[in-house]
């Protein structure tokens, strides 16, 4: 059964999007990427370290024949900074796909949704395919879709917190109000969080720390892959309604006396 994730007309065989930060080593990262099955991978744009001559670049450890790069604007705090980072990323990556992220607060890393919408409008005008990190607010999600974003990526919980989906009701509402793919981005801690996101009807999940920071990152990457598949299948299958009381699945008739 064909159930590909389609973003801006491009098909992806996996509904998991994965990051490249905080792994114990590049080697472990590469093995995690393989185990995860992800085909979209986020990277950050930073100043070249002028004193680290000859160090192998990050791209050496990413299979770009299988994975599409999604440069992010992590730790940008204004629309202008984010737009500038995207323009640099486009020259670096030879594509105009970006994960837009404009933060509003250093402690929570919550997004500044006003600046995010401003940046999204500019970037869409410049021909970028914009996947914005946003709050779990359906109104903002709709504004981002109206701005021309290719997906919306509401947070489950603060970035790196591992708290899981704090407001499943809002995530479901976002899925209802926008037509573009909804990708839960940030805050998942373990496989069940990913499964819940998929059961809510989300189109994908983007994660990093939950894998990179696990005791066994490669095994957790595999767990996330399975959770994506299990959650998606459960969503498509349609869960039973919740009932207040018991309802036996064995027949009442024919019990032995």
């Amino acid at each position, binding site marked *: 059964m064909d159930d590909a994730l389609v973003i801006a007309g491009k098909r992806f065989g996996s509904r998991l999007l*994965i*990051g*490249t*930060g*905080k*792994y114990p080593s590049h080697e472990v*990262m590469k093995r995690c990427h393989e185990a995860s099955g992800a085909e979209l991978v*986020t*990277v*950050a*744009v*930073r*100043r*070249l370290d*002028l004193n680290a*001559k*000859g*160090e*192998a*670049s*990050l*791209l*050496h450890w990413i299979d770009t024949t299988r994975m599409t*790069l999604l*440069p*992010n604007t*992590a730790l940008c705090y204004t629309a202008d900074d984010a737009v*500038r980072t995207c*323009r*640099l*990323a486009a*020259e*670096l*990556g030879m594509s105009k796909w970006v*994960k837009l*992220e404009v933060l509003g607060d250093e402690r929570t*890393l919550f997004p500044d949704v006003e600046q995010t919408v401003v940046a999204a409008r500019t970037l869409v005008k410049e021909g970028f395919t914009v996947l914005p*990190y946003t709050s779990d607010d359906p109104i903002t999600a709709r504004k981002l879709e109206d701005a021309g974003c290719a997906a919306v990526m509401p947070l489950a919980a603060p*970035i*790196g917190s591992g708290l899981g989906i704090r407001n499943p009701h809002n995530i479901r509402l976002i899925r209802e109000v926008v037509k573009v793919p909804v990708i839960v*981005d*940030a805050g998942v801690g373990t496989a069940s969080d990913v499964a819940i996101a998929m059961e809510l009807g989300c189109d994908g999940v*983007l*994660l*990093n*720390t939950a894998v*990179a920071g696990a005791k066994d990152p490669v095994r957790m990457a595999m767990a996330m892959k399975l959770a994506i598949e299990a959650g998606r299948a459960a969503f498509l299958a349609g869960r039973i309604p919740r009932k207040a009381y018991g309802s036996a699945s064995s027949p009442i008739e024919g019990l032995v006396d």
Partner: protein
Amino acid sequence: MTLTVNGERREFAEGLTVAALVGQLGVRGRVAVELNGEVLRQAQHPEVTLRDGDTLEVVTFVGGGA
């Protein structure tokens, strides 16, 4: 001539192009360059000659999720 590269002031020979500068920095892999606040296209790197006092940002991809 003096250039400011990634916030560091350094001395370079006159007549250097952006591509030559990137070569001198010992870069392995692809970089993007912003010259005096304007992002350069890759094709411009061999064509643009730097001048005394120019400010450059040389960036690359590093690990990151969000």
